[in-house]
């Protein structure tokens, strides 16, 4: 097992989760819980892939994937922000709809054959750093580097800019934000849409960069839900989300790599000896998310930090309190 290669692949896989989680952080910071990430990722994955197949241009695929994810998220925005329906149920409906629609659109796409993917390259100088260079800056997809930039940029946007202040105000104290002239509805629409676009980008990152191809609902295979879980673990911070996403990606790659060698550290490999044991490896990432949720929830309880105060609550003008 080459740990460096595993970590490098873990970062690439983690980038998928990272995009989706950052998008969800933005929507939730505005007070809208969108559980439809899985559906939006699938739509982004299939639309991006189909575009790249038919035009031969993966960049066009990225654009259409983000638009498709954003458009789907607007459905959630209309139902929950304007019509004030339950955000949990609407998000579930979005996942059902996105999954079904993606499978309808993706019919026959699995036989599309090889397509041109987004470019991979190494960063000069940075790739020469010992340990970190070969893992993080060597022959990675451009999407991985976009991820590196997105995290600090999102943090800066949320915490250091005026629109970011409005975003937080809308998520924490919408009535006060409204009184100060911040458009609560418009802000929420905007960030739900951006969140949807990032979920679409996450889907396109799967099919156009990291794990190319269309495999029906298995293309995303529950990773949208893991991203939603990651947001809770990350306590709505982009940096923590990035750490969680890369860690999760590394664990997934590690569980895959552990199935191959006949011996590990000189001991006979139980996953090689008896293939059925590998199903316990498959459980590991999900168990890890559960553990992360427990730790995250406990820490949040202890420090009394947590979800944006207005998360999940429809805003009604003129209504006092909750």
């Amino acid at each position, binding site marked *: 097992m080459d740990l460096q290669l595993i970590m490098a692949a873990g970062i690439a896989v983690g980038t998928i989760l990272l995009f989706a989680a950052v998008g969800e952080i933005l929507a939730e910071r505005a007070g809208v819980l969108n559980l439809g990430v899985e559906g939006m990722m699938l739509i982004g994955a299939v639309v991006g892939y189909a575009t790249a197949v038919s035009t031969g241009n993966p960049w066009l695929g990225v654009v259409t994937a983000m638009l498709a994810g954003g458009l789907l998220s607007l459905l959630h925005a209309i139902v929950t922000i304007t019509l004030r329906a339950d955000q949990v*149920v609407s998000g579930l409906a979005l996942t059902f709809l996105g999954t*079904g629609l993606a499978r309808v659109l993706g019919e026959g796409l699995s036989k599309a054959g090889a397509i041109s993917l987004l470019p991979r390259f190494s960063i000069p100088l940075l790739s020469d750093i010992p340990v970190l260079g070969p893992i993080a800056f060597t022959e990675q997809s451009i999407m991985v580097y976009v991820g590196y930039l997105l995290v600090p940029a999102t943090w800066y946007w949320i915490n250091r800019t005026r629109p970011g202040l409005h975003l937080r105000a809308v998520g924490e104290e919408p009535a006060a934000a409204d009184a100060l002239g911040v458009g609560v*509805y418009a802000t929420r629409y905007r960030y739900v849409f951006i969140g949807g676009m990032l979920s679409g980008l996450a889907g396109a990152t799967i099919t156009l960069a990291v794990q190319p191809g269309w495999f029906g609902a298995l293309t995303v295979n529950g990773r949208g839900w*893991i991203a939603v879980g990651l947001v809770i673990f990350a306590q709505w911070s982009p940096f923590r989300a990035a750490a969680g996403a890369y860690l999760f990606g590394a664990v997934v790659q590690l569980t895959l790599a552990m199935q191959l060698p006949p011996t590990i550290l000189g001991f006979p490999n139980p996953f090689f000896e008896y293939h059925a044991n590998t199903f*316990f490896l498959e*459980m590991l990432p999900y*168990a890890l998310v559960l553990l992360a949720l427990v730790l995250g929830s406990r820490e949040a309880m202890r420090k009394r930090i947590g979800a944006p105060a207005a998360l999940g609550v*429809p805003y009604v003008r003129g209504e006092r309190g909750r």
Partner: protein
Amino acid sequence: MSAFRGGLPFTLRLEPRMEASRWLSPALTAAALVVALVISGAILAIVGADPVRVYLHIVGSSLGSIGAISDTLVKSTPLILTGLACALAFRMRLWNIGAEGQLLLGAWAASAVVLVPLVPAGTPGVIILAVMLVAGFLGGAAWGLIPGFLRSKFGVNEIIATLMLNSIAFAWIQYWVFGPWTEGGFQMTEQFPPEAWLPRLSDLADAIPALRGITVHAGFLVALAAAFVVWLIVERSAWGYEIRLIGDNPRAAKYAGIGIARNILLVFAVSGGLAGIAGMAEVSGVVHRLQDNFSPGYGYTAIIIAYLARFHPLRVVPVAILFGALILAGREIQPSGVPGMIQGIILFCLIASEVFLRFRVGVVRRPPVPPAAAVGAASPATSPAAGPVTGEGA
């Protein structure tokens, strides 16, 4: 800010409805279904399928003959049970999305009764089936208690927890059917002995030839009985009152001294147990063995069923039968994602339709506003009718 809203020449006015007439809710449900089918049909037409043929196919292959109706009831059996599981939990606003995993664990526990075996050889069929039923309930309940415990003890979001547990349960089943219980390396166990099969109507075919091929099994009766029991619990028992109060107003429930943590655990256990029985009914009544992928996502469809039934246990039955027909027909529909897509659209139309239940909805034309005056979304200056809306209906 205003640019977005300013683009629309009208705005929606929502006035809370104090009381809705009795027929409004069922009428809205029906209307939502119709709208959903129209939208789905439009999408089908866009992707090149013939919506009329698809719908006729659904009706024909699910209700076209006695055999088809029987097959529909077979499909609806696990849907009723998992639908009840969701309806019970959702009534308390406990989002148990894990009926699928609880179904799998129930199926596993019921299979263990036969395959380990947990009953001595020569045990009469009735006893075996009873033990399997209990094992199925306990298996599902145990799997449901995990997110219940995490939620009540650590405040862990039950949606994510149950979804993760679904994936773990899926891998768990695969471990057993590929590993210790495999039959010759195929992803299935050996067939159960006939004593462990739930009786079917076709078992009587020797006496009544007309019943040949009618595969509806006793699990359907179990599901109907379960619907009645859950109805008794929710609507007619003191415990059900606690569940409904927590669901409607958790703060009031807390002040009334109702143990919320205890109820979370109890509801998750019973909810999981119901889904577990669904798993038992599938392995004992339909596939007669444990195998990979025997559930086409019953536990997820159950979420929509519970919602469509508006969490009412008795209404779960007809809705589940409707979805049983959809799943049955959906196996042959191409593209294969169509049934899932229709389910999603139905759910969307349903929740969107609820706005009419909670509010009187009016469309208010907005007079053109100079951009400077439109700072802040829907400024009161636009029109008095578009101004503040007070209160939210029940």
